[in-house]
């Protein structure tokens, strides 16, 4: 292998890819990145057996070939080089020579044949959405996924492709977030019209990092097979395995008819909840919400700490209600929403609350109350 390329392009690609590199691993080669020169492209691959990332960088190829080198070492060296042309050449099967201006490095790696091949998702079903939409889908749901690996299925995000578009669903059994992208924003690219998969939240986090909203940016191309899913943005690809199992029937927990509701300014509500939560820290962040005659009051009390009382102007409909929620389950969602006001609907103090952004019919958030 012998290639020359621009340092900043190489740096950016390495940064994207090497986040996937396994941190603590029993297989040394998994902390390496694969460099493969073919035609006018250098393929950079990292794979930790669960998630794989690949980036293609335009290069001038003098000699094709491949090898792997430790991601940290290569990344750190390239990051601190001056902006100039970088030349990389395989000196042996597993030694990379790198030169840039008057800097010269040799980096010891491992032969490319030992690197596990990144699985390809070729015969799957797929669709395309804009980067902005994909970012919305991920950001609006991912925080609701569980962190408890003992119930693996809840650590993932359910992706549903159907006639009405694309939907992402996440729940940790205390709360549920559902975000949809309507059919007109989704472009069919072949395969089945209806399918659903469960994607590890960590993979979506990586996808989210490579997205940038903007009109001219290329769309995200999603392709799923039985075993894995890939997200392609321009020259960057992320492949993840899928979680096996039956996702809980989430539709059942969305309250169908609610008789009480409150509409309130989102940012004010978020700020008030954050303040009141300071007092409630010792009480599992329990906040009590009272809705009556045009006001929403939030109160918290902790024996050792003291009390908090907040009042917000709100449009209240239906009977008065007193209900308690954990602040943690509200701050995430209010932070992610972008509308000016939110609509909060209830049926009773012991049933779940349904939270919606006032101007976004595609987003639903259900949260379980606490005992008063």
């Amino acid at each position, binding site marked *: 292998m012998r290639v020359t390329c621009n340092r900043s392009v190489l740096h950016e690609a390495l940064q994207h890819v090497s986040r996937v590199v396994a941190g603590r691993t*029993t*297989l040394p*080669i*998994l902390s390496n990145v694969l460099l493969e020169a073919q035609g006018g492209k250098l393929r950079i691959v990292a*794979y930790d*057996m*669960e998630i794989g990332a690949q980036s293609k960088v335009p290069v001038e190829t003098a000699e094709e070939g491949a090898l792997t080198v430790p991601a940290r070492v290569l990344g750190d060296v390239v990051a601190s080089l001056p902006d100039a042309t970088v030349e990389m050449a395989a000196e042996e099967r597993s030694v990379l020579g790198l030169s840039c201006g008057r800097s010269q490095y040799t980096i010891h790696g491992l032969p490319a044949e*030992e*690197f*596990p*091949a990144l*699985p390809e998702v070729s015969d799957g079903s797929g669709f395309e959405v804009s980067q902005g939409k994909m970012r919305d889908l991920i950001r609006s749901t991912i925080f609701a996924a569980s962190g408890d*690996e*003992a119930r*693996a*299925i809840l*650590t993932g995000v359910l992706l549903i492709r159907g006639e009405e578009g694309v939907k992402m669903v996440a729940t940790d059994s205390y709360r549920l977030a559902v975000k949809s992208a309507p059919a007109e924003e989704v472009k069919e690219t072949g395969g089945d019209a209806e399918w659903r998969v469960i994607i*590890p939240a960590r993979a979506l986090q990586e996808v989210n990092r490579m997205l940038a909203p903007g009109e001219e940016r290329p769309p995200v191309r999603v392709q799923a097979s*039985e*075993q*894995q899913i890939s997200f392609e943005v321009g020259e960057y690809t992320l492949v993840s*395995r*899928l*979680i*096996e*199992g039956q996702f809980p029937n989430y539709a059942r927990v969305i309250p169908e008819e609610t008789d009480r509701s409150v509409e309130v300014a989102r940012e004010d509500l978020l700020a008030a909840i954050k303040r009141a939560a300071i007092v409630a820290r010792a009480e599992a962040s329990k906040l009590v919400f009272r809705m009556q005659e045009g006001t929403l009051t939030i109160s918290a009390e902790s024996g050792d700490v003291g009390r908090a009382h907040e009042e917000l102007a709100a449009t209240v409909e239906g009977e008065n209600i007193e209900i308690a929620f954990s602040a943690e389950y509200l701050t995430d969602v209010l932070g992610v929403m972008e509308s000016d006001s939110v609509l909060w609907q209830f049926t009773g103090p012991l049933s779940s609350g349904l939270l919606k952004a006032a101007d976004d019919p595609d987003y639903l958030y259900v949260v379980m109350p606490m005992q008063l």
Partner: protein
Amino acid sequence: MRLGDLIGQTRAATALRNAITRHRVSHAYLFSGPHGVGKSTAALAFAQALNCDRPSPDDPAAACGQCRSCRLISQGTHPDVRLISPPGKRETSVIPIDRIRRDLVYDINLRPAMGRRKVYILDPADRTAPFSIHTILKALEEPPPYAVIILVTSRPALLPPTIPSRCQQVAFQLAGIEAIVHHLQTLGLDAPVAAAIAALSGGRVAWAVGAAHHPDVLAVRNALLDLCAGLHARAASGGLRLAEEIKLQALALSQAQNDGEEQTETEDASSESGSAPAAAGGGRLRSDLPWCLDVIVSWYRDRLAAAHGAPLVNPDYAEAVSRRKSGRIAADERAIAAILETKHSLQRNANVDLALESLAIKLLAEPATMRSSSHSERGRAR
């Protein structure tokens, strides 16, 4: 390595092959049997057979060994085959619980990346952090359809009973000596050397192959047998010196086996700060000494065998063995008993030096003990 190529494990290999050809692969297996007979090799061969892209058309259980899947499995980088082992080379290092959680309990929920089956090999399954083996219970209980969990152990009794009861058990045996001799000869060893190593391996193929790569092992064996051959000429008071000589041979053996692994050993020692390197050497001595004692036992065994015209373990020492005085059968038996007892007490953490000295004194004082013990027998009879 194919399942059929396992040495001296016809029954285990047949059971595993039948599971594949008859489409009755179990979700969990317990590979049990003595140390070094090929359980780990069999686990990898089974994983290859389960995932091979191009199995032989007339035998679906024979992995090709050439396809990408087979190659990745033998390299240890197949995304669907996880080998979960203790991190260090030491006998005391265990598989940490977070490794089991991440690489088995969580990972089992991810669908296979390329293979048809996901195979998890816990080797050895009895060396997990305390109580952490229980974390795999749920995975053993309701595994996804594509998963196969293989627990490898030479000490199945150390597993809680809830584990084996959820696994299909595959027993591995000590291989026949002829099979090992044959295998060593295919590796290019001369017949007499192969026979000697095979006899000393006690049916443990892995050990025999290891010894075949270390000529020093044979040198240690020769030195020990020479030592035995010269015992009759020694003074009964030379016990301490004899003990020292046996210990030196055991150390030489450790050295011979260590040569390739020195790098990792020192890394191990430095990573666990405060552990004295001497302690590591001591642990190695403790594991190599039993083999040296086995060699000495084989000497006494041969003397008994020669008396009855039975085949010898060490045919190359036939002449020295038969140079025995008559009427010492009881003494040889007692010597064997004493050595076996020493071996046993070493396993129970006896002091190495004291145990060896006590043994050496017994071996040298044999005629005297014979007399005294026959006295005491007579005394008891009265």
